[in-house]
């Protein structure tokens, strides 16, 4: 192993950590602020470190800190304390591991060496995700059962039944997708989506497999235990569901696990149906061929984007009392943005002036693709949040009806149709 390969592996692991674990506080923040704004409220925006609020992001860190230092309370009736403590670990670990196979850029080639850009370099792809996502429900069931609480048990039972009915439809919808793409390796799937359909539409999964995309997205909501399928939690019916008895960091693990699972589901949706790390119309080869132009566009677009962001910050990022330390934040943010602009433009400009070598083109491609993937991931996570604050919870029988009577038959029919089309095209 050369130094470069070790560096790339480490960067990959860090990126995977950032996208999953690092995303959790950001997602909590998005969830709270978006919920507030959707409901014409402000949402948490007061917490600050030396005046820096980042729009309320600091609140998530304060919250995590609080969970860490809270009393680790456990009711006396809980006898299986090993399983009780194991449950959140299972939920968290499986959510976390399921993220590890998401490719966030095309295979990177440096000095003739090929690196798979994902947390764990494996070819298991979708199967790994399905296996681990299914595992997380064991944590929920274990937690609910060992809590010795009727509400927790009810929540656990609901979670179990829900996962059984939705995993089937999810698996079947994935089958039809795999038939179309002809591979379970997520890298191949994304590469397939870099093509153009009829020469002008990007062949994204959502366009060539709309029904599978719909079923998969719906079941992914159920899999991640998000509204409208958060019956396992059901705070208006069964207190807190499976985590009623949990507090402090044990609850924190459930809590973070939920967001990591949501991020993992989003990553898979992005990878399977939204073109993965591809910018529309620019697959890896075109991106590399037109790299100088794209970098120039970046040099122009970045200051424009930052300018409008700065205008927005000036207008909206104010505190309501003069002389409050929080009023210094806007200036700080604007300086940060200007600094970022200077750095990026200097870096990209130097690249352009010095001329692009093959390696630097490859690395630039990887960076652009990682950024694209991050943006798409953020968007899909936003959709999860958005849906949560739009739709009410399903009733239990409605959930089962939808799962078995609608999604399952639809998924099976979709398998037949896609198989027929694939075979017909192959003839």
């Amino acid at each position, binding site marked *: 192993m050369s130094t470069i390969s070790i560096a790339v592996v480490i960067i990959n692991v860090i990126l995977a950590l950032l996208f999953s674990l690092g995303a959790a506080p950001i997602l909590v923040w998005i969830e709270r602020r978006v919920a507030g*704004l*959707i*409901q*014409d409220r402000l949402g948490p925006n007061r917490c600050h470190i030396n005046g820096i609020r980042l729009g309320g992001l600091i609140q998530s860190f304060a919250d995590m800190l609080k969970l860490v230092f809270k009393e680790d309370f456990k009711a006396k009736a809980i006898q299986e304390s090993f399983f009780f403590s194991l449950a959140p670990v299972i939920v968290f670990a499986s959510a976390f591991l399921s993220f590890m196979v998401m490719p966030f850029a095309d295979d990177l080639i440096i000095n003739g060496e090929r690196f798979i850009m994902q947390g764990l370099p494996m070819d298991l792809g979708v199967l790994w995700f399905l296996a681990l996502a299914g595992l997380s429900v064991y944590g929920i069931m274990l937690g609910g059962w060992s809590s010795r609480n009727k509400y927790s048990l009810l929540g656990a039972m609901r979670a179990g039944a829900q996962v059984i009915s939705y995993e089937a439809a999810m698996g079947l919808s994935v089958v039809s997708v795999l038939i179309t793409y002809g591979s379970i390796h997520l890298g191949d799937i994304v590469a397939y989506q870099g093509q153009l359909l009829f020469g002008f539409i990007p062949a994204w999964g959502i366009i060539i497999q709309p029904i599978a995309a719909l079923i998969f997205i719906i079941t992914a909501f159920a899999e991640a235990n998000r509204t409208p399928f958060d019956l396992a939690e059901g705070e208006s019916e069964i207190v807190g569901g499976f985590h009623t008895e949990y507090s402090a960091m044990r609850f924190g693990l459930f809590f973070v696990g939920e967001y990591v699972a949501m991020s993992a589901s989003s990553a898979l949706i992005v990878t399977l149906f939204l073109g993965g790390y591809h910018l529309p119309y620019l697959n890896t080869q075109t991106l590399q061929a037109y790299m100088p132009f794209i970098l120039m566009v970046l040099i122009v677009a970045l200051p424009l984007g930052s300018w409008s962001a700065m205008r927005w910050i000036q207008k909206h990022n104010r*505190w309501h009392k003069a002389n409050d330390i929080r009023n210094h934040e806007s200036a700080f943010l604007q300086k940060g943005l200007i600094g970022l602009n200077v750095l990026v433009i200097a870096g990209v400009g130097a690249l352009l002036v010095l001329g692009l070598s093959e390696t630097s083109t490859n690395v630039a491609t990887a960076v652009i693709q990682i950024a694209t993937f991050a943006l798409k991931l953020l968007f899909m996570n936003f959709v999860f949040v958005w849906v949560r604050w*739009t739709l009410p919870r399903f009733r239990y029988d409605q959930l089962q009806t939808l799962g078995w009577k609608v999604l399952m038959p639809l998924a099976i029919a979709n398998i037949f149709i896609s198989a027929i089309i694939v075979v017909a095209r192959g003839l």
Partner: protein
Amino acid sequence: MGIKIVPRHGNTLKEKLYLPAIFGGMKTTLSHLITNLSDTPEIKTINYPEEQPHDISERYRGVHRLTKRDDGSVRCVACFMCATACPAECIFIEAEERNDGVDEKMPKRFDIDLLECVFCGACVEACPCDAIRMDSGIFSFIGKKREDFVLSKEQLLANEEKKA
């Protein structure tokens, strides 16, 4: 006959598909989000306590105050009507003789425990002398100890009427 037939919803194909309605709902929530991020937000909440509510009506029952006579002395005659009327029994009066010739009796102590008070206004209604009112407009009362919430005669006298 007064029977009204309500048409049942949810039987057309469009309604059974759910998705159009779901997308409609998502459009509504997104429009709220975008409006609130734009230059003309329609946020209905305020940054309390930096911003104070501005829509409190004049008749809002705030913290009590004891009114004064024209000469500035306490108007209350310690008749105990308010303490009798109070459903929460949170008014504690101790009477004393009044020697300045203005009246015969006045309160020596007049305490109201705001933690027990339900802000019903019965004391104001009961008072025959218009000596107690709840028009101070103070709607948030902050203290660190329970004792802080027991207002003495002096504090009650110090509260001013809130002018609109």
